[in-house]
Each structure stands twice: as C-alpha cells, then as structure tokens.
C-alpha cells in the first residue's frame, strides 16, 4: 500500500514538473522579453500598409507578455493562409518561466509565433487581446461586414 502511494505520488509530481511550457499545456508565461524590432515594417504582405503606419504599432513589454498569455495556438495552415496577416510587427527574444528561450514575432493582425531554441515552432492568434493597437479580431470563421 505504501509502495503504491509512493508510486502515485511520484507520478503526480512528474506530471506537474515535466511541462515544456508551451501553449499546448496552457502554461506559457513569459518571464522576460527583449524587443529587437518594434513598430517595424516587413514588406512581405500585399496591401496598403506603409512604414509610417507601422511605426505606430509599438508594443509595451506588458502587452507583449499579455499576447502570449491570451493567445491560442494556431495551425501553420491557419497562420499562413486563413488568418489575415500584416506588415506591421514587433519581435525579439524571450524566456519562458521555465527557462525556455525563443525568438518571437507579433503582427498587427494578432498573429504571432515562437521559435524555440530546439527548433520547435508555435503559431499563435490572439482574438482575446484587448489592446486597440491591433486590427479588429477576426478568428477563423469570422466574416467582415
């Protein structure tokens, strides 16, 4: 009985400590964030966005952290094809609360991604971010009038 108790205790302890600190396990908390670009213009996207317009897309450190807290995981297909993109972006590097390092990017259309040091990539979309600096939220299935 005691052995059984110890076994399950270890099992629970293992489950609590083995998270990879990704959005999939719902625990992506950013410890520190460094900006290398802010209010930047990519030029990769068609449309009428200009460098001058993108200079207004400036995120604070708290807004950056909030994006990763509030966003959902998107598929690569959604990120690439289904969700609206934007030329206006901010980006840099970050460290999660569990010490994982990643390169990040957030655009004005509420898309973002994380590229972890081990090569893992996570695409994100934040419909729940309330900052007015973003385009109006339009997640998969939404239609503009």
């Amino acid at each position, binding site marked *: 009985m005691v052995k059984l108790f110890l076994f399950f205790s270890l099992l629970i302890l293992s489950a609590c400590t083995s998270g990879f600190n990704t959005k999939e396990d719902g625990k992506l908390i950013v410890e520190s964030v460094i900006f290398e670009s802010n209010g930047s213009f990519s030029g*990769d*996207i*068609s*449309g009428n966005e200009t460098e001058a317009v993108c200079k207004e897309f400036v995120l604070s450190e708290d807004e950056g952290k909030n994006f990763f807290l509030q966003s959902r995981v998107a598929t690569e297909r959604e990120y*690439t094809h289904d969700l609206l993109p934007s030329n206006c972006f901010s980006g840099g590097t970050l460290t999660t609360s569990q010490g994982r390092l990643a390169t990040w990017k957030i655009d004005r*259309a509420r898309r973002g991604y994380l*590229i972890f040091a081990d090569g893992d990539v996570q695409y994100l979309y934040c419909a729940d971010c309330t900052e007015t600096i973003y385009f109006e939220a339009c997640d998969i299935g939404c239609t503009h009038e």
Partner: protein
Amino acid sequence: LGKGLPLSEPDPDKRIYEALTPEQTISLKWLVQEIQTTLGVPLNEVFRHPTVSYKNKTEAAAASW
C-alpha cells in the same frame, strides 16, 4: 496556387511562392474561362488573391490566365 518555399523557413511570410507549372497554368486558364462563360464574370474582375486581400505578396505572382 503552389506553395511558399522553403518550407524550412519558419516565418511563412518570408517564404516565396513557387511559379506555376505548365500543367497548373493550363488548368488555371481553363478554370477562368469556365467562370467567364458559366457565370458571366468578365476577365477584368478576376484577381490574384494578394490584390484583393492582405496576403503573402508572392502568392500567384507569376500566374497568368
């Protein structure tokens, strides 16, 4: 039409869409012609996706119909 390359580029916005193959171009020409005749859509109302929406600007860049 086609896919953005290289797939190893993690930022899809940085990928460049490959040109259409001759077979894809033949299919596209047929499709546009059918849309014209069946639905009565004039040629000047057929657009590449990046022309009418924010998209990777290399998508369908070399397509012709």
